[in-house]
């Protein structure tokens, strides 16, 4: 009975209100679900890749710089117990597809015992295919790649490997037995051909081990380690997947945290709606209480309403999220490709547990949102409702209590912001941001008072009266108005904080590129349509550059992996003497780049990037011991440089030292500094001529390079624009919900105003003024708190997530947000304004006489 009276019938009478709230929850759940599904698709694809490509191998032997095939001899003692398979696994660019393809180089004679690849050929065809693969440039391609390229057996296709175009022939097409997506765009080649293509003669990326007998893997691994030099690592095949998964999960965490923002706005929306409905039904609650309804019965009715909103919104959100996941996949594809090379998200699969998670998220978010309105409802004594003719506003808290609560929340935010990351993730900093956002609930009331207290003296009496009446209406419905302002405030705060973070990041990147990329020309491998580049440049190209410009003007940057204290890091090699002349990356301590590189070159020292220094807590002057294929290299740190190109720790040593430890697989990029008297464009033309079309590389000038960096940057942060739109949408929904409720409740009051002579225009303006004031109050609060949250994101979250210290910059674009949010609130006021116009003056007088 209570349920019917308090919830079911009012909901049926005003289905739009319920639908709007459900939609708010659905949008929040949908953004979380689509983000999770997209990143899980990446993880699942990666997992399937490793599992499928690894086949039946159980252990892998690897080493930064590759496994030297001559060391296979040392493994002879275990040959009877285990099958050893050398593997090269790389990526190449397909100019036809504009995308990366993967190449797996294996020993064809023994590999069939490991992997479930069946060539689509029989008898003589199969024999011919094998011959072509073993003795010529024949490769087997997956069925899906053959289809994408539109060619079949016997036909040739081009790839760009190490900046050179190579032509391969399809010897056979294979159909994977399992994990179709894992073998998408896959090329199977003989290991010798792969070594030749990648200039990796005498080495392979890893040696896979399949035990022939039921052996203890731990013991086998120990035996293998005992047979090989100590620089080799023996790990289960799944270790590579774990590393990739760790990187994708870190990305997932950040994306989910961003998507979680919309859930937060959804919570405020549900809270706003429930608070409105509680205040609207306060008389009914009071009446039911005086008729004997217990507090728990009232609470049950409100929680059932919240739960129902959450369940329906959650279910709808899961459906929307599933649909939206496809587009989310494309937005995370590029990012995933850059952090875990060669991995792209596969097919989106909605598992029942994810659906359940989404629905639970909606349900619990709604129940959480119901807590404050519930408290207000339970505080309603029976007498209050009966005494009043109209719903009364709930009295605001005394300002002292409000100030104490505000101080408490800010104190908690400061405390959590000062805590170190939890499991390498800025969880406490995000909790701090939540506390800061929750201060908006405390600030909204006073802000409404301020907005309602400003007298529009500069306006004519005719126009001012609409605003004055709107202010009076907001004062009368302070609690509900405060809820709506909070919803707007949270949206604005999120938009402002994200804009501040992105703006600060952008400014830091712009400044950084200006200092870190001073070269006049920049050579890099061809990139995919999405901007991802893979592989290296043919070492011969470095020679061409040196011949053209001189050794003092060319800085080839090489990079490979190494271990530091057992962890995988990046080890770079750069021409320190060249950089010392021309300048390079900026250093954290502000020392001139030339000075640090000159010192590093002179003392055979290293420079490390900021993420490395932060993660391993090292500083200039400390000594590092880096585990390389040539053994441990000890280097003093000459300086810590700012690095926004990645968040993996990187150590850079002098190129000549690097090349002693690693084979020359070619540089990742080449920076060219022009001698003072040379013209840029003619120098580029001369260099391109010198390359004589033999290489497929991009040669960018400095302006193009910086533009490219910014283009990638903008693309990476495009997702924040979508989240800002979602936030604004939910804020507008909150304004519509609250204003509609206020108008419905004040029909008689509005009718009285009409009787007193207000025109329809004045009534319309009155409601729009309310929307404007709600928007203004929310925006003021949101702007203030948003900047503080932005500061936490820039100085704490970024630092803990990526190890990047950024300069806090307030971008001018935050004012664009204000120019969007307030008109959005006015727009949201249109529907209630038109509703108000339908108020007939006669509703003010009782038609009972």
């Amino acid at each position, binding site marked *: 009975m209570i349920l019917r009276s308090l919830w079911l019938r009012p909901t049926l009478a005003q289905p739009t209100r319920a639908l709007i709230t459900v939609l708010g929850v659905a949008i929040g759940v949908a953004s979380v679900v689509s983000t999770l599904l997209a990143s899980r698709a990446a993880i699942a694809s990666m997992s399937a890749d490793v599992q499928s490509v690894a086949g039946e191998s159980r252990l892998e032997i690897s080493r930064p710089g590759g496994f030297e095939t001559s060391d296979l001899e040392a493994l002879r003692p275990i040959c009877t117990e285990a099958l050893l398979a050398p593997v090269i696994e790389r990526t190449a660019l397909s100019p036809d597809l504009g995308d990366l393809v993967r190449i797996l180089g294996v020993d064809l004679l023994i590999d069939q015992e490991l992997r479930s690849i069946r060539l689509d050929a029989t008898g003589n065809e199969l024999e011919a295919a094998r011959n072509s693969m073993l003795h010529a440039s024949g490769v087997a391609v997956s069925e899906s790649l053959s289809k994408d390229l539109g060619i079949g057996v016997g036909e040739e296709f081009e790839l760009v490997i190490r900046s050179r175009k190579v032509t391969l022939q399809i010897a056979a097409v294979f159909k994977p037995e399992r994990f179709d997506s894992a073998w998408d765009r896959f090329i199977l080649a003989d290991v010798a051909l792969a070594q030749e293509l990648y200039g990796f003669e005498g080495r392979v990326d890893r040696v896979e081990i399949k035990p022939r007998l039921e052996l203890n893997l731990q013991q086998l691994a120990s035996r293998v380690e005992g047979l090989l030099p100590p620089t080799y690592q023996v790990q289960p095949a799944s270790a590579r997947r774990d590393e990739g998964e760790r990187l994708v999960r870190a990305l997932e965490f950040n994306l989910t945290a961003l998507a979680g923002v919309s859930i937060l706005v959804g919570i405020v929306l549900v809270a706003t709606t429930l608070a409105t409905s509680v205040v609207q039904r306060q008389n009914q609650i009071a009446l039911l209480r005086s008729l004997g309804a217990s507090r728990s019965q009232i609470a049950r009715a409100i929680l059932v309403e919240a739960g129902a909103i959450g369940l329906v919104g959650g279910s709808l959100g899961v459906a929307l999220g599933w649909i939206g996941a496809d587009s989310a996949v494309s937005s995370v594809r590029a990012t995933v490709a850059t952090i875990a090379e060669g991995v792209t998200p596969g097919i989106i699969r909605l598992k029942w547990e994810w659906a359940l998670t989404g629905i639970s998220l909606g349900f619990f978010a709604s129940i959480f949102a119901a807590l404050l309105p519930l408290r207000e409802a339970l505080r309603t004594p029976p007498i209050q409702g009966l005494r009043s*003719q109209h719903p009364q506003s709930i009295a605001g808290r005394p300002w002292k209590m409000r100030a104490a609560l505000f101080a408490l929340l800010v104190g908690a935010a400061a405390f959590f912001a000062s805590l170190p990351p939890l499991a390498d993730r800025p969880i406490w900093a995000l909790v701090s941001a939540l506390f800061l956002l929750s201060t908006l609930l405390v600030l909204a009331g006073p802000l409404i008072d301020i907005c*309602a207290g400003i007298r529009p003296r500069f306006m*004519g*009496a*005719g*126009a*001012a*009266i609409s605003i*004055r*009446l709107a*202010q*009076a*209406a907001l*004062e*009368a419905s302070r609690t509900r108005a405060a809820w709506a302002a909070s919803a707007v405030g949270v949206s604005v705060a999120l938009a402002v904080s994200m804009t501040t973070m992105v703006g600060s990041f952008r400014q830091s990147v712009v400044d950084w590129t200006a200092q870190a990329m001073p070269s006049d020309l920049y050579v890099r491998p061809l990139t995919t349509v999405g901007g991802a580049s893979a592989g290296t440049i043919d070492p011969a190209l470095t020679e061409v550059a040196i011949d053209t410009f001189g050794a003092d003007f060319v800085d080839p940057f090489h990079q490979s992996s190494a271990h530091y204290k057992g962890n995988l890091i990046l080890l770079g090699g750069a021409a320190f003497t060249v950089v010392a002349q021309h300048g390079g990356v900026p250093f954290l301590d502000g020392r001139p780049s030339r000075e640090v590189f000159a010192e590093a070159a002179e003392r055979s020292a290293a420079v490390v990037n900021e993420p490395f220094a932060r993660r391993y807590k090292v500083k200039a002057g400390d000594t590092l011991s880096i585990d390389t294929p040539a053994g441990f290299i000890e280097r003093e740190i000459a300086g810590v440089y700012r690095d926004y190109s990645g968040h993996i720790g990187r150590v850079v040593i002098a190129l000549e030292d690097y090349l002693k430890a690693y084979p020359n697989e070619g540089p990742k990029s080449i920076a060219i500094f022009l001698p003072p008297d040379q013209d840029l464009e003619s120098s580029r033309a001369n260099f391109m001529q010198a390359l004589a079309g033999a290489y497929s590389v991009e040669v960018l000038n400095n302006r193009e390079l910086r533009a490219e960096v910014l283009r990638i940057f903008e693309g990476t942060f495009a997702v924040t624009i979508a989240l800002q739109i979602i936030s604004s949408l939910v804020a507008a929904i909150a304004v519509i919900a609250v204003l509609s409720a206020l108008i419905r409740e004040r029909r*008689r*009051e509005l009718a*009285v*105003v*009409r*009787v*007193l*002579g*207000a*025109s*329809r*225009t*004045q009534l*319309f303006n009155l409601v729009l003024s309310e929307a404007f004031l709600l928007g203004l109050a929310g925006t003021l609060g949101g702007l203030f708190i948003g900047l503080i949250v932005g500061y936490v994101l820039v100085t704490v979250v970024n630092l803990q997530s990526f190890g990047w210290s950024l300069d806090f910059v307030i971008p001018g674009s935050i004012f664009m947000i204000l120019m969007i949010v307030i008109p959005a609130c006015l727009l949201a006021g249109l529907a209630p304004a038109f509703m108000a*116009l339908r108020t*007939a*003056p*006669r509703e*003010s*007088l*009782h*038609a*009972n*006489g």
Partner: protein
Amino acid sequence: MTPISSDSLLAAAPTRNSSVATLQSVQRNYRRGKVTVQALKDVDLCIERGEVVALTGPSGCGKSTLLNVLSAVDRADGGDVMVCGLDLRRVAESELTLLRRRKIGVVFQDFQLMPNLTAEENIGLPLALDGQQDSDRVLHLLERVGLARRLGHYPSELSGGEQQRVAVARALVHRPEFVVADEPTGNLDSSNGKEILAMLMEIRLEEGAALVIATHDKEVASRADRVVRLRDGQVLGAHS
């Protein structure tokens, strides 16, 4: 939404004859579910300038409907309604708004003050809606209703009687040609009721406005120049 022209004919068209409102064969029907209710049946009524007319009759007899029609709040379905020289059945909605704003004052049974406007602001509301400000006039009326010291108070800080005084001042602030009052003493105790009624009569006399008052109270009716009795939407008779 029809915009209101600032100086419509209303402003320039004072009532030329002695009556402020004339109703002839007025009908007003409502639908309640599937049933059509005849709220007013062939009502003829004339309100003279400065006259006090009491509308009496049992609940549901059509008093409020008649007040709605007279005060340009509702339109009749049939007959002729001339108020302050305007044919209310034929003028645009914007003209009705202007009429209410400038020529008619209304006092409600339950006061109907704006809860978050002060007494002073509530009284000045009709002027403000017309783009005017006349603090002297508002203060004068506040004094007249004995609330000069309460000008900054909100309705919730005033007693029922005080709230109705504010409502009376509001109804008269723009010097209307006539005032309609729907049971103005209905929510007050008898002494407050008497006081309010006396005040209403007195001020409207000073202002020269006609007053149409719907009431159940015989004492209120006895103070009117004329009593019009209604039953089932029809005028049964009138006596002075």
